[in-house]
Each structure stands twice: as structure tokens, then as C-alpha cells.
């Protein structure tokens, strides 16, 4: 089915340039071009769009205002800004409602790729309600203790970037949000970052401060949301998995990007659980209870109840937020790596093995049996003999 893409820019020449440049995509995409936010909303009301690509500064309604309305009224639409504007206060306001940010002048290939990736995400998550729910998320809840630590650190006149980076790198949600900001061009050119600490350093303390205090892009779980969900255990498991995944990638002599992605994907691999626990606490508790009762894995119970799993939900979210493909892929397939089209060593390999190993070491997570190692997948990559060397102590370190 053809995807529908809506482009909004007050400069007609820009729209025409885009139309010509994207002409080769006309068979896959139905492209619509409008010159104002009002027209865009009117058009969306007639027929939904998969992706909206909007300019930032426009007379009347600016990009942030438009995409905020789109988020509220048409949550399924993926929201992308394409702007040549560099006023940081304006960009700060966009961080909430905008999924990804592209800077003008934008390389044609990157624009195409970004839109194509956004379109492809749909296949990850079939249920429109869930899609809307995930696409509407501006923040992910953090561990309350870490959230408080960050608040204190950014308000401490003596607080340092290193200190803030250290706290944020221990939190799944803050790490995810930071990676969204640096993987898009919100605050400069997009580039590879090796860790959340580096992301904090790239953004700088002033921006982090503004994001944390004024824009409130971070939030935290409250007691109600937690429910039966054991946050501490999830956090410990995620940290241990990230360290283990990094070690596996390193020992397999992978290049720096793969190691970095393995590390970050390890930390983020269960981010979907946060989405479900925060937004569908009853359903999610039921899934946990069912897994416990029937002795299945949590994700099998999730699939039975929700027709999807936290792996797909997490991958969908991070895909929307523009995180690198290897991370999104590692999340999506971390229970069943054999289903992944790419069967070479990747961050997914490291995360899948690390996840299984850490679960074997410490299976205190609520509900169900831990996911088993996909032996066929490991064998196919020729890593079966390596397993014992990764199993012992270091994974417990966290």
C-alpha cells in the first residue's frame, strides 16, 4: 500500500524542490505539499498521513504548534521537522512533540531514508491504538531516585556535566531521550555517539538544564504506575545486560560502532516494558500474572494479551525517535533473533546473548520464565563455543 507523506513549508520553492527531488519515490509514496499549518490540519482531517515533514518557522502557525496539534489529533502520524532555523529556545519547545529533527539544507538521501524508516516502522506494531499511544509519548518515566538525583545535579551550581552524564547513563528513559536528541539534528548535526555520557557532553549543561527544568522532557514513575512492576529489578537487569552485551561485542572484535550500539541497546532493550507499565498498567500486570501462572515467558504472555510484545513496542518508540537502526533492530528481535533478516553478528547478537545470560544468572524478575537462548542462531554465527567464556561473573557486576 502506498504511504502518504505530507510536506509543509511556507516557501513554495522549497516544496517544489522537494517534490521534484522525491519524484522517483512517487510509486511508493503519495506526496502532498501544503504551504501552511492550517492547510496541513485541514488535509489531515480529510485523510490521514503516515508521516508529516514540516518547516519550523512559518507565519501564523509554526512547526511546533502544528506538530503539537498533529500529536493530539492525529497521533498515528510520524512527526518530523525539516528546518534551517537555529534558535535554540524555539528548538527546545519542539523537543516534546517532534519525533525527529532534520536540518536544512538536508541531504536528499537522508531525508528519503528518514521518511522511509518512519514508514517502515508501521510493520513493527500492527495495533493502531498502541501505535498512537507510543507516538504520543513525549517522555518516558525514569526511576524516581535517579530522576531526583538529576534534578539536584542540574540545579547544583557546582554540578558538572560528568556528574549529570553519569546519573543519566544509569537511567533507561533518560538515555533513550538523550539519544533521540543527539541522533536528530535538534541541537546540531546528527552524529554517532558512543554513550549517554557523550550525549550529555554534546548537548551541554545549559541545554540539559533547560530540557530538564523548563521543558521537563524527563519524568518519573509514580507509585500507582509501578503496580506489580519491579522497577529496581528491571533497572538492574538492563544495566547488567548492557555491560555484558558490550563485553561480548568487544571480545568478538567488533568495530567501535557495534560495541557502542550493543552497549546502548543492552540498556534500552526492555524500554517497551516501561511504555506498557506506564500506560497500560492493568493489562501489563495481567500479562505478568499470566506468565507466572502458565510458566511462559513474559513476552509470550504479552503477545497473548496484547498481540504484541514489549520488544516491538520499544523498537517502535526508538524507531520513531530516530535512534540508529542497529539499536532498533536489537530491541525488536531480542527474543527471537532468528527472525531478523540480517543474520550476521550485530548489536542484536550481543544483546540477545547477554539478555539470556543475565537472566540465567539472576531470574528474580517478576513473572514467567526467562527467555531461552536461541541456540540455533548462536550456532549459525559460530559462537556456541564462546558462550561459556561470557557466562561467568562480569555480567553480574552491576
Amino acid at each position, binding site marked *: 500500500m502506498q504511504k502518504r507523506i505530507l510536506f509543509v513549508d511556507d516557501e513554495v520553492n522549497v516544496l517544489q524542490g522537494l517534490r521534484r527531488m522525491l519524484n522517483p519515490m512517487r510509486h511508493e509514496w503519495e506526496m502532498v505539499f501544503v504551504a501552511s499549518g492550517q492547510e496541513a490540519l485541514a488535509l489531515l482531517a480529510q485523510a490521514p498521513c503516515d508521516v508529516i515533514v514540516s518547516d519550523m518557522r512559518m507565519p501564523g502557525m509554526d512547526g511546533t504548534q502544528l506538530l503539537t496539534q498533529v500529536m493530539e489529533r492525529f497521533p498515528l502520524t510520524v512527526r518530523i521537522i525539516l528546518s*534551517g532555523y537555529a534558535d535554540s529556545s524555539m528548538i527546545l519547545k519542539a523537543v516534546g512533540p517532534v519525533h525527529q529533527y532534520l536540518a536544512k539544507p538536508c541531504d536528499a538521501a537522508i531525508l528519503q531514508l528518514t521518511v522511509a524508516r518512519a514508514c517502515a516502522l508501521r510493520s513493527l506494531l500492527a495495533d493502531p491504538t498502541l501505535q498512537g499511544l507510543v507516538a504520543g509519548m513525549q517522555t518516558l518515566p525514569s526511576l524516581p531516585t535517579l530522576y531526583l538525583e538529576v534534578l539536584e545535579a542540574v540545579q547544583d551550581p557546582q554540578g558538572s556535566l560528568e556528574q549529570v552524564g553519569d546519573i543519566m547513563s544509569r537511567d533507561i528513559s533518560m538515555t533513550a531521550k538523550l539519544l533521540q536528541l543527539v541522533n536528530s539534528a535538534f541541537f546540531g548535526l546528527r552524529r554517532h555517539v558512543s554513550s549517554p555520557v557523550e550525549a550529555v557532553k554534546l548537548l551541554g549543561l545549559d541545554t540539559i538544564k533547560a530540557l530538564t527544568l523548563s521543558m521537563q522532557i524527563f519524568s518519573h514513575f509514580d507509585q500507582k504506575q509501578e503496580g506489580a512492576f519491579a522497577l529496581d529489578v528491571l533497572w538492574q537487569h538492563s544495566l547488567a545486560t548492557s555491560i555484558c552485551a558490550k563485553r561480548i561485542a568487544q571480545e568478538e572484535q567488533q568495530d567501535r560502532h557495534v560495541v557502542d550500539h550493543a552497549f546502548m541497546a543492552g540498556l534500552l532493550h526492555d524500554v517497551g516494558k516501561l511504555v506498557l507499565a506506564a500506560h497500560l498498567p492493568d493489562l501489563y500486570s495481567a500479562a505478568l500474572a499470566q506468565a507466572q501462572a502458565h510458566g511462559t515467558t513474559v513476552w509470550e504472555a504479552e503477545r497473548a494479551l496484547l498481540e504484541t510484545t514489549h520488544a516491538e513496542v520499544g523498537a517502535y518508540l526508538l524507531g520513531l525517535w530516530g535512534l540508529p537502526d542497529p539499536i532498533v533492530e536489537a530491541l525488536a528481535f531480542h527474543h527471537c533473533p532468528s527472525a531478523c533478516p540480517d543474520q550476521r553478528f550485530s548489536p542484536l547478537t550481543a544483546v540477545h546473548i547477554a539478555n539470556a545470560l543475565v537472566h540465567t544468572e539472576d531470574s528474580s524478575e517478576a513473572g514467567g520464565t526467562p527467555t531461552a537462548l536461541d541456540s540455533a542462531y548462536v550456532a549459525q554465527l559460530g559462537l556456541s563455543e564462546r558462550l561459556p567464556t561470557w557466562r561467568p561473573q562480569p555480567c553480574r557486576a552491576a
Partner: protein
Amino acid sequence: MTSAVSPAVPNTGGGQQQNRTSACQNPNQGVPGHSAEDALRHNYQDATLPLVEYVNDAIAIVQYDKIIYQNPAYLKLLRQSAEDSLPRDLLDAVMLADRARVQEYAQKCQRGEAVPEQCKVGLCTDDGRLVTVEMKPRLITYQGQPATLIIMRDITAHNQAEAALREAHQRMAQVLAAIPSILIGIDMDTKITWWNTTAEQTFGVAPSQVVGRPLQECAIPWDAQAIMNGLATCRSTQARVRVDDVRFHPPGRKEGFLGLSLTLMQSASGEAAGILLLGANITKRKLMQSQLAQAQKLESIGQLAAGIAHEINTPIQYIGDNMLFLQESFHDLSTLLEHYAALYQMCRDGAPMASVLGQIETTTAAIDVAYLTAEIPTAIQQSLEGVERVATIVRAMKEFSHPGTKEKVSVDLNKAIESTITVARNEWKYVAQMVTDLAPDLPLVPCVPGELNQVILNILVNAAHALGDGGGDGAPEKGTITVSTRQGGDGVEIRIADTGPGIPEAIRDKIFDPFFTTKEVGKGTGQGLAIAHTVVVEQHGGQLTFETAEGEGTTFIIRLPLTLSGS
């Protein structure tokens, strides 16, 4: 104590003449009127001493430390009653500290030895108050015996006044010492009378080197000519003169600037008594001012940079897209051209053409030749427009900034205004329509182009902000900014009018104040209009005014003279 009578003392029983010489050793001391001495001179021989009874000075006659006579003024001074029986001891009323001295003087005097003309003594009254008196002991003959006449004048009040004056002086000296300003006093002959610590520190010249010497002869490391000119003006106008930016260069330190005010000092009678030079080293302040002006410039340039980046990025975006499209289109079309070339070859060779005709049909459909022929000219046209836009902005930036020009040159104001409008386009285009009404025959105006562009920019940006603040989140109506130029009289007038909310009454007299800003903290140094005012008024000898009506808008009016003047 002693009964010895000094041989030097003339014998009693003599006439008035004799007594006068002994009692009145210093004729200058005689005070006419109610002076006790005058009274005594005539009457001390008389037992009743009637005149002495009426004088205001306290009088006692002492013989051998005992008071044998006291007048009513004495009793009044010491709060004693007439009934008190004599003889009292003289020293009874004298403060402890003064007793030895008084006794010594009284005795010496009685012996005819020299004593001080007068001395200050503290007395204690019967009701316990302390009074200070000026005491004059005199040798007299009383009832045939040498005696000491003691005249006392109450100087308590005088003393207190003196103490108060001393204290006031001291306080004044402290205040003057605490003033971190240069304070130099000169008299009418330009001799230096004052040279305070700050002056010493500033110039590295000690008071001893200059006080008492004429100013022009002193080696003070400053621009003496500027000072002398200031002094001359001060004398001739009889008014305070401000002399700013006086260069000075103390040995071993960096050159700096002084700001001085010269004030004529007058004596009590109203005559000119000298000139006071009061001032300070204003080097740091001048530095700060120039840094602040620089900061404001950087701020507006920084703000512009974001806008200019946007203005350039937009055309670059579509130029890039169009170029990519043209590249691919050409690729497609050259495929088609190849087929046509083959067709031509076949035509010429008379070969069967069916296969190549099919290819041409397929390719023509596949590459959508109709679309390409329609789009390619527009793509080229729009790309050229984009190139022109970038060029215009870059040209305007160059004209706007005028690097290096610090002096007044003849400037085409219309052109300067157009460049500034272009540079600031991104600041106003979302909130305003720009209307220009520039007089085509406007003469060239002498001004510093960079500075004047900055003024126009500051006012334009303010106008855009005024319009921006008015709109809500929805789709606010764009306002209008009208820039017009006219020649009028011996100058030109630039009017920059907006249709914003106007300036509220309460802040109208503050808008040119430095640091005054209505923008949120951290936005704007509050220097924009203050600097505009300085540039127009001080640097160009022009006027910067505004007309405003709440709800209707504000017009800033810059008037610049056509002739070069003053500063």
C-alpha cells in the same frame, strides 16, 4: 602661705595711676564696656566696688589662697549664694586637674612674678556642672596688701562650639579622604592648594611636590592643555565645566582617561576664591562602555546570524533538490536521446526502425517526458532565484557590517536602509509586511555607516518584536513596518513606523535608558535603543525621537544633519 610682698610690686595706698600700671600690664587686653578690668581700674580701692558688681565677668580677689571678694557674676557662675561665708578657698571650685596650675599662678602673681596672660581652667559649680573659664590673674593691692585679682570669663559655650567645629572639620577631612575621586584645589593664581590621596595615587605625584606651586609649573602627567582650556572656560563663564576624556599617563603605568568637573569656589563674601577640580579615572568605565556597545552589537549579530542562516539555508535546500532533480532528469533524457540517435542512424541507413520506435515509446512513458519538459525550466528558474536570494543576502551583510569604517563618510541612506532590511528579513517577515517609502532624491548624508546601520537594525528589530508580541498562538494578522526617508531643511529624516501596540505611557521616558528592557531576563542587554540614541545624538549630532499611541503603533524618527558638525 607667704606674706612676702614682692619688691617689684608698687606699694598700696598709691593713686590710681600706680594701680593702673600694676593691674593693667597689657593695655591691649582692655575691653571697653562691661569689662571687669575697666571697672576695677577705677574702683578696686573702694570697699564697695560698686561697678564690679555689675559686670558680666566673674571676679574674685584672692589673698593667700583665700577668696576675700567675689562679685555677683562670680556667684552666679558658680551657683553660689551670697550668704556663703567668705573666705572660701580659691581652689575649692577648680577642677582637680587644674588646681596645681591655678595655685601656682595665683601665688606667682601675688609675688609679682610673671604669669601667663590668661589660662583656661575648668570649674565645678555648686550644683555640679562643669564650666570652662578663661582666667586672668592680676596683681593688685587690696586693702594695703598685695592680692591677686582673678577675672574669669565663661567660655563653656564658646568651647563647645569650638569642639563642634573641630569635629566637623575632622569629619569633613574624613569624608574627603574617603572620596575615591581626584580632588585638586587651586587658588586664583592657579597655585595648588589641595592635592588629595587619590590625586597622589592617580598621578604618582606627592602633595609636597605640587602644593603651593602654580599648576602649569607642576609636572603632572596629564593633558595640560585640555585642563588649561577647561580652567579658562570655567573662569570666563563662571560656571561649572565638565572636561571629559582627558588623557593621562602616569609613569610606569598604562595611559588612561580622566573625567573632571571644574567648579568655581567662592569666599564667604562671594568673591571667586579658586577652582576645585573633582574627577576620576574613567578608563575602566570607557572600556566597559565600549565593551557593552560591542556586546550589544554581537548580540544583535548573533541574533541575526540565526536568521541569516535560515534565510540562506532555505534557498540552498531547494537549489540542492532542484539540482538533484536536474541531474536525474538529464540522465533519463540522455537515455531517450540515445534512442533517438539510434533512430536517426536507422533512418539514414534505411534500416527497419520498429524496435527502436518501441524503445522510444517505452522510455518516453517511463521517464515521463511531459513531466520533465514542464518541470525542468521551472527547476532552473527557481534555482536561479535561489542563487540570487543568497547573493542578495550576502551582499547586504557586507554592506551592513561595513568592516573597518570608523569615520564619517557620505552614505546613501536609502541603500543602507535596504541592506539592513534585507539582513533583518528573518526577524520581521513572520510578523510584518515591510513597506518602504524612500525619497529617490535623498542627498548623501555624512555618517559612520556601520554605526548607523546598527541603529536602524535595533529600531527595526524592536518594531518586529512589538508586532510579534501582539499576536497570539493562532494566526495573528501580520502588522506593517513602514520605513520612509525625506529631506527636510538642512537634514534628512528617517521614519520607522510599526502598527504594534505602542509604548505604554509609564515607560516612555525610560526607553532610551541604558539597561532598560521589556524583554525577559537573559534576552537583550537593554542597550539597543540607548546605543541608538548615543550614536544618533552624540556621534552624528542628530536627533532620535518617537511618536507613539497605545493600540496604534510607534514611529521612531531619526534626524541627521547634512553638514558635518562637532564631535
